């Protein structure tokens, strides 16, 4: 059974099929795209059902020689760290594709790039050969460049190339670090499991350099201060569905890489540098939330809140404890769901009002009850209200980091306050207060939007009450990662 290959390549197969459909049949293209990503989602659910959470080993392993001359393998496998991200990716892709049914321009190309992007993202989370990982990592760039650049907002072209160049800049350091790992292993290998077995032989100085190289590559994607500046621009200019994927999945690639490769392979360097990552996490939390507070564009506000939320996840990681790792991964999943929903919801209002200015609205609560309800739940989940998804993961992150860095954690707690403040301001200005009569003709959410948003809302509630749904399958893997990080 090649489940992981099927999962990875299904979307691309759908994309190629789309290229064969005549340009005029837009509906056929859309349905085909939804089918392909729906099938991928089904496969990922199958994976979840058949995944045994009791063991920390890699599962569903596929290993085929690819370039034997350099012992490069096509090596796919999933464990507790990749599984939730796989399901998140396929779910968000499916919903984002449904949400993009209103795209009218160059429909074929749009869905082709979207499905190509999905294949690349899935590959990143399951590739365990560093060469293959790098290939998938870079493969996300080109479709994303086109998705932002063709279907984006007014400054789309600049946003697209900025996103491209930033990520590529980071990847360069990553590539050099990967080459260094290759030449420092004996026999030379790109295989993650083989490198893991030999990482005790890596000298301290070497580990530090490789860690920094990998970190620069990953931190662009997280995005961690100070390499975050592409994010607000790209998120704001990208079309709604693409923002969902950017925030929901692409940002997770950085954190995933950090946990999987940097932490796993380089324990000495991790212990050495983790304090600096904690500081960057705090900057992300506080600075991200302050920036969000200063925005008047709703989408921009949510984009900056992503920086803030990724800071929480990093903070969970710096404790290097099982609780923290669990919190971090749960935070990744929750952020994907919540921010995905928020971007979809902002898209809903932007499609109708053609503005996202926070001050242009007012009193929409009475006019658009369904929309208001959705938006409020998503905002409350994002600011960490108990019983909604965000609370559990943020709590776990803070809980673990407080034990290690109490002062830094205290500073970052202000981030929570500011986050709460700007979301409440958003709700107050847009939905409460006197009704702005300019929006008399605004309609509530239609079927397509409801279908795209409702699953995310339901998940927010479910994961808020039963976080064990995610935590159970990942716990053993992450506990194992903590063991790997123990210094001899």
């Amino acid at each position, binding site marked *: 059974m090649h489940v992981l290959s099927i999962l990875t390549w299904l979307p691309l197969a759908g994309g190629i099929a789309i290229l064969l459909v005549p340009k005029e049949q837009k509906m056929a293209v859309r349905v085909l795209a939804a089918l392909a990503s729906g099938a991928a989602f089904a496969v990922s659910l199958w994976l979840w059902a058949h995944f045994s959470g009791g063991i920390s080993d890699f599962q569903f392993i596929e290993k085929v020689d690819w370039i034997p001359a350099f012992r490069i393998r096509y090596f796919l496998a999933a464990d507790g760290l990749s599984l939730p991200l796989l399901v998140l990716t396929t779910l968000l892709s499916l919903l984002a594709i449904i949400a993009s049914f209103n795209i009218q321009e160059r429909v074929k190309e749009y869905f082709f790039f979207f499905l190509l992007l999905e294949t690349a993202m899935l590959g990143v989370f399951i590739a365990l050969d560093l060469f293959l990982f790098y290939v998938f990592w870079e493969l996300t760039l080109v479709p994303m460049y086109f998705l932002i650049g063709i279907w984006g907002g007014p400054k789309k*072209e600049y946003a697209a190339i900025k996103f491209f160049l930033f990520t590529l800049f980071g990847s*360069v350091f990553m590539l050099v670090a990967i080459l260094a790992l290759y030449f420092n292993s004996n026999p030379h290998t790109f295989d993650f499991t083989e490198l893991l077995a030999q990482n005790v032989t890596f000298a301290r100085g070497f580990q530090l350099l490789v860690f920094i190289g990998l970190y620069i590559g990953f931190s662009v994607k997280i995005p961690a201060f100070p390499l975050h500046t592409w994010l607000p621009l790209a998120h704001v200019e990208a079309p709604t569905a693409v923002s969902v994927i950017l925030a929901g999945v692409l940002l997770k690639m950085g954190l995933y890489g950090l946990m999987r490769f940097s932490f796993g392979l380089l324990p000495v360097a991790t212990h050495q540098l983790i304090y600096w990552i904690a500081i960057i996490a705090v900057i992300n939390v506080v600075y991200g939330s302050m920036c969000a507070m200063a925005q008047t564009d709703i989408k921009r506000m949510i984009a900056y809140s992503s920086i803030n939320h990724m800071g929480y996840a990093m903070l969970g990681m710096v404790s290097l404890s099982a609780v923290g790792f669990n919190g971090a991964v749960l935070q990744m999943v929750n952020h994907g769901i919540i921010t995905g929903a928020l971007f979809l919801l902002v898209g809903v209002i932007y499609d109708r009002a053609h503005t996202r200015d926070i001050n242009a609205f007012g009193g929409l609560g009475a006019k658009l009850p369904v929309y208001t309800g959705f938006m409020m739940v998503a905002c409350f989940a994002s600011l960490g209200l108990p019983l909604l998804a965000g609370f559990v993961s943020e709590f776990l992150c803070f809980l673990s980091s407080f034990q290690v860095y109490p002062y830094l954690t205290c500073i970052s707690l202000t981030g929570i306050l500011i986050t709460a403040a700007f979301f409440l301001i958003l709700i107050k200005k847009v939905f409460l207060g006197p009704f702005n009569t300019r929006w008399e003709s605004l309609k509530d959410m239609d079927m397509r939007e409801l279908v795209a948003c409702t699953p995310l809302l339901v998940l927010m509630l479910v994961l808020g009450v039963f976080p064990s749904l995610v935590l159970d399958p990942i716990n053993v893997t992450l506990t194992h990662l903590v063991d790997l990080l123990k210094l001899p």
Partner: protein
Amino acid sequence: MNSYHLLAPIFSLSAFAFLLFGVDAWTKEPTPGTRRISFWLAVLGLGVSAAVVQSPLVTGSLFARQMLIWDGLSYFFTWITLLTLFFVVLLSDNFADFDGLRMSTYYGLLLLAGAGLIFLVSSNDFLMIFLAIELFGVPSFIVAGYLRHQERSSEAAIKLFLISAFSSAMLVYGIALLYGITGSTSLTQLHENYALLQTMAPLGLLAIFFVLVSFGFKIALVPFHMWVPDVFEGAPKPVAALLSVAPKVAGAAIALRVFNLVLPQSGLGFFTILAVLAALTMTVGNIIGLQQTNVVRLLAYSSIAHMGYLLLGLVGGGELGMTGVYMYGWVYLFMNLGAFAVVISLSKSLGSDDLSAYAGLSKRSPILAALLTLFFISLSGIPPTAGFVAKFYVFLSAFQSGWIWLVALAAFNSVISVGYYFKVVHQMYFRAPEGTQPLVLGPSERLTLAATSFFTLFLGLAPQFFVSTFQALAVAPKP
């Protein structure tokens, strides 16, 4: 004396060249009919030459009084030359600027230039190297100036001629010094007596320096690159395509032979010089590339930068470095000729090579736009294309020899190069088209595009077959 069959491809190319000159003498007026006949004769000539290429010799590969050599390196770069010529001939078939010109001479000269390049890569003596460079050079000036009614074309020819003459003079000077030191022009002798170069340190270094500079002009390394953009822009575009691949890659091949096989690390420090040249070449090529608004000039600077990357294989050295150069040359052939093929097919319908003429191309010709994007992605070295595999290969080899700063710089350069490659992509996809009529492609252009794009993708996805073949060829006997 019976080893002359190793020269069969050269004989066959020359024979067909003279046949084509004969056709020219018998035609009164250039007609489409004669153009077709010459085209097919050229294709046939290349086919016959390809059919008679002998497999490389592992032992006793020296022949013709040790003047020539037929090893894996000569064999491999002979194929590169023949393939480049094949694509260039295909691209010349429909090229509109050639209408009304006597094409049989043109094709004959192309074949003759190819013979020169094959000579070059199978030389084992500096005199042969000099002769081969001239045999390639003279036909290439003529074809560069073939559009004799266009001033730019003549300018390109003159520039190419002057630069070639200058660099040949340098080469001869270097050869003279080497002869003075070692008493021979043979590479075999040089290999045996390389210690002499060290004992005669300043003079030996000077000799190597002159040879290096002259090769630098051929491969267009910075700071010897000034001729490239002007010549590419002025010459007929198929000729520019030829100049961007065959002589540069063959020049790199002979540099590989001289610097990596004949002269081992001799303490003369020329590997450091090569590394600095590589660093300069890619950085300057890419940074100036950012400023270009003409697609041909942009490709010219890109070709300069790519020779910088290729040099990483030379600097890296060893078997890995050699294989890296093979791989890079092979991949570069397809991706660069592919990009040129698109530009050539477009030049007629767009009537301009300016960046702005490419606006909205994705609407007018989605296939051409997608292909050009593919070639540019490959040229920028982004996976899963061939360009990435090739870059990865040379990076590996340089990294292995400890040139980590150079690898980092080269990787960083790939980021810069995205800046200009994607300027074109930007125009094609993000801008509205000016005209709306769809663009048509001739059959020979289709064939070129199909072949180059196939290899650009295939080599990226499944490089193993070529990797093992090249590794086998790279363990060539030393002269």
